[in-house]
């Protein structure tokens, strides 16, 4: 009961924040609000017992993506461009896709249903045997690091490469701009 | 004994709620950025410390208390540092604090 109320309140704040992000045209405000958005969704994950997802959301959503978005703003303008294109068609597409997604959730098993397909295949085996086989207290950790070790290694490599790429793009551009700034300074002094 | 701890942690949590909400109200009510900084520092110091202390009392001598104390310690150090960084960045980029009318003369130095 209490958890339902908390979830409702959190969802209300989440939707308000999302609407505020859409309405806002100052991009710094959007960045701060999206940080708040990911904090709120992480709180929701905590109330849904998905602690690991909340961990990731905390690290990526609130921490890294804020920094990266700020780095991007440093290279572009600070306010949103106004455009006068027709908004009806994108709106229609959004509504249709949303409706399809909501229709799709109707077929999904209930939250925490023990008879859901995902809980019948290998999950019971992991839950019962991972302590003996891997000897790691957290089952999710043992699945990620051992049963699906190669998968995780590939994922880590992909994320690492992507991170290096983003950093190179951001720092390379600002480096070029810095050189331009210095040249301008020299011209002013001369 | 449990009754005493319960009462104490009630007091702490209620105090924490009070100061956090007061900080929020101050953040809304104060007229400019520089005074809002002070409002946030109310909920950051008093609200946070009272909340953490109340939860510590409820948890007793367990691992949870250790984690709570760690959280409290980190926030005790990082909170003012972050506030200082905000104030400093605002000052450097040229947002001047308003000075009360009767104090304007001695600020010229």
């Amino acid at each position, binding site marked *: 009961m209490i958890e339902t109320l908390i979830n409702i309140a959190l969802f209300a704040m989440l939707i308000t924040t999302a609407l505020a992000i859409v309405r806002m045209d100052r991009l710094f405000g959007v960045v701060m609000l999206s940080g708040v958005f990911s904090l709120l969704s992480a709180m929701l994950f905590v109330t849904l017992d998905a602690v690991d997802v909340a961990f990731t959301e905390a690290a990526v959503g609130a921490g890294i993506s804020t920094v990266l978005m700020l780095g991007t703003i440093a290279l572009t303008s600070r306010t949103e461009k106004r455009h006068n294109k027709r908004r009806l068609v994108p709106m229609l597409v959004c509504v249709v896709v949303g409706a399809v997604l909501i229709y799709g959730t109707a077929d999904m098993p209930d939250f925490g249903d023990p008879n859901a397909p995902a809980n019948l295949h290998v999950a019971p085996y992991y839950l019962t045997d991972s302590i003996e086989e891997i000897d790691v207290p957290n089952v999710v950790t043992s699945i990620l690091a051992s049963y699906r070790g190669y998968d995780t290694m590939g994922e880590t490599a992909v994320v690492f490469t992507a991170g290096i790429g983003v950093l190179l793009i951001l*720092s390379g551009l600002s480096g070029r701009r810095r050189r331009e700034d210095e040249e301008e300074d020299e011209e002013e002094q001369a | 004994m449990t009754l005493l701890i319960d009462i104490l942690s009630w007091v702490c949590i209620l105090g924490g709620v009070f100061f956090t909400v007061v900080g929020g109200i101050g953040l*809304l009510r104060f007229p400019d950025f520089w005074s809002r900084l002070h409002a946030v520092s109310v909920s950051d110091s008093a609200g946070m410390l009272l909340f953490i202390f109340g939860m510590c009392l409820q948890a007793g001598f367990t691992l949870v208390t250790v984690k709570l104390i760690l959280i409290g310690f980190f926030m005790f150090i990082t909170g003012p540092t972050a506030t200082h960084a905000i104030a400093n960045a605002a000052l450097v980029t040229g947002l001047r604090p308003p000075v009360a009318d009767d104090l304007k003369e001695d600020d010229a130095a």
Partner: protein
Amino acid sequence: MMFLVGAIGLFVSMVLVLVRLYSGPTLYDRVLAGSSFGTTTVLFIGVIGFLTGRPDFLDIALLYALINFVGTIAVLKFFRYRAIGDHKWPRNQVPLDPSPQNPEDVA
């Protein structure tokens, strides 16, 4: 029960902070509100842990307490030096006493 009261109080505070975050007016108000929201989030996760009887969730609160700090500092470093990277103004070039700006420019 007492944690329910705590959760409700934190909710009220979060809503107040969100209003300030949305209404601005300067960008530093937004950063301040964002950092304050982080503090309430940390406390709220702790309170939720106690409310559902499983205070083990505090690990995330601990992580948040650190990430919130790092995030705020990164944001402010960006505003102060206009870059996330190693672009630094020499200390003596930081305009310590620039003429007061229009707050709209800063926002």
